[in-house]
């Protein structure tokens, strides 16, 4: 197709000439979508993620959960570039084993969070394109959530959403769990059942409006009895 760019100011066609070396950019990253969410309660923690793996406008896999079990009391949710998610979780697993063998005890949630921060910052100049959220029980048995950015900055939260639909979920959690922007409401502590129902409802809404979120929802509920998983179907379109 002859475009207007090939015509010069005089109206005649420009002569073809070799412009020299052209740099073709290769991007080492891809965005595979997905949303993760973690909520900390009085004596429990929930880590939930959708299970859709996408790229561009296509779906790679409808059953690829983003929650990975680290220890009996800690689960990590990773979304972003799937290649980096897989490698990062392998590295964390290896480091956990090394710690267990040299210190003769399992890593606590807080220790895993601190370690992850140093692992991520170690790649400050070629980052892991992963949005991490750790959920688990701390040493006292209370729920703990640690949220990270791709280069290792982290903080302990009560609840956090990450990934593609995070901007849609976070304000709703701020309102329902943090009781923000509401007046005259009793601050009742969150029960396990109410938290799980809230997580399910919030993902149903996210699947309506975010194209990267859908297919199914994997919820990991962590209590001192252990870890309990359930899978709920979501919109598949």
């Amino acid at each position: 197709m002859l475009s207007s760019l090939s015509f010069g100011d005089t109206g005649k066609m420009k002569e073809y000439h070799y412009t020299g070396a052209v740099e073709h950019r290769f991007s080492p990253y891809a965005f595979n979508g997905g949303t993760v969410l973690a909520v900390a309660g009085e004596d429990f923690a929930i880590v939930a993620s959708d299970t859709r793996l996408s790229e561009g406008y296509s779906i790679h896999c409808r059953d690829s959960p983003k929650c990975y079990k680290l220890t009996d009391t800690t689960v990590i949710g990773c979304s972003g570039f799937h290649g980096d998610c897989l490698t990062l979780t392998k590295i964390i697993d290896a480091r956990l084993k090394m710690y267990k063998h040299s210190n003769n005890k399992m890593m606590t949630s807080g220790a895993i969070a601190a370690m992850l921060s140093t692992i991520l910052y170690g790649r400050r100049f070629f980052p892991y394109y992963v949005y991490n959220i750790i959920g688990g029980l701390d040493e006292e048995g209370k729920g703990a959530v640690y949220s990270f950015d791709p280069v290792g900055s982290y903080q302990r939260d009560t609840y956090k959403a990450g990934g593609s639909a995070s901007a849609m979920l976070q304000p709703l959690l701020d309102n329902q769990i943090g009781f923000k922007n509401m007046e005259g409401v009793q601050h009742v502590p969150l029960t396990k059942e109410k938290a799980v129902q809230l997580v399910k409802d919030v993902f149903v809404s996210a699947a309506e409006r975010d194209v990267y979120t859908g297919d199914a929802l994997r919820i990991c509920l962590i209590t001192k009895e252990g870890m309990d998983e359930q899978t709920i179907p979501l919109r598949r379109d």
Partner: protein
Amino acid sequence: MLQSLSQRETGGFNFENSRRNAELESSLSENGFKGPNPRKTGTTIAGLVYKDGVILGADTRATDDMVVADKNCMKIHYIAPTIYCCGAGVAADAEITTQIMASNVELHSLNTGRRPLVAMVTRQLKQMLFRYQGQIGASLIVGGVDVTGPQLYSVFPHGSYDKLPFLTMGSGAAAAVSVFEDRFKPNMELQEALSLVRDAVAAGIFCDLGSGSNVDLCVISQSGVDFKRGYEQAATRGQRGGDYRYKRGTTAVINKTITNLSLELVQESVQTMDQD
């Protein structure tokens, strides 16, 4: 600016505005701003010719980048009593172009005293789109029945067109055309053709992230038009379990002023509303 105007003595098309737009976009991105993104429909649209006429199908999702802007928009547009058009690409372009076509077709039909031909609609579309050199981002499938029989055309944003027995366009075109290539036969019966178009659009809805929600179908034949809006709800929303209603007084009232208006009471009627 004046200098370039006087130098330009060549006739033909003037695309100064597209050069200006490109410069604006690059200067905006230098300062970190992004120009406004036109809303695209994502989309799966499909059409096929069956024994008695033409069936057009479309999904109903409109996206703003990767967020769903409209869960139930209408992508099958009216052009003439027996000619309809599915639109993909930039939502505004598809909508306005089809409206312009509909009004042109009405005038042309009154002028000639004849019912419009699908080929006439296609020719006007391609001439307009070529004139704008692809700047109007509308990909359209035009289908209808006229005196020469059932016809199906596709028109691309740069102005090319194809006349074929089955067509798909939009981001979900690849998913939909694979279903057509597998099961299309010439001169199908209505039910078989309906289920084939429904399957093709459903393939786009489930396999393409830019398409979703419902399937709209439009059957055009000699006996008339059957617009099946919401033919099937391919993907249903999940049920919300919790109750998220806010009690009265949850929103903080900072200030309250009451201003009395001096009015004359003419008529009084009472309508009860739900109160919680």
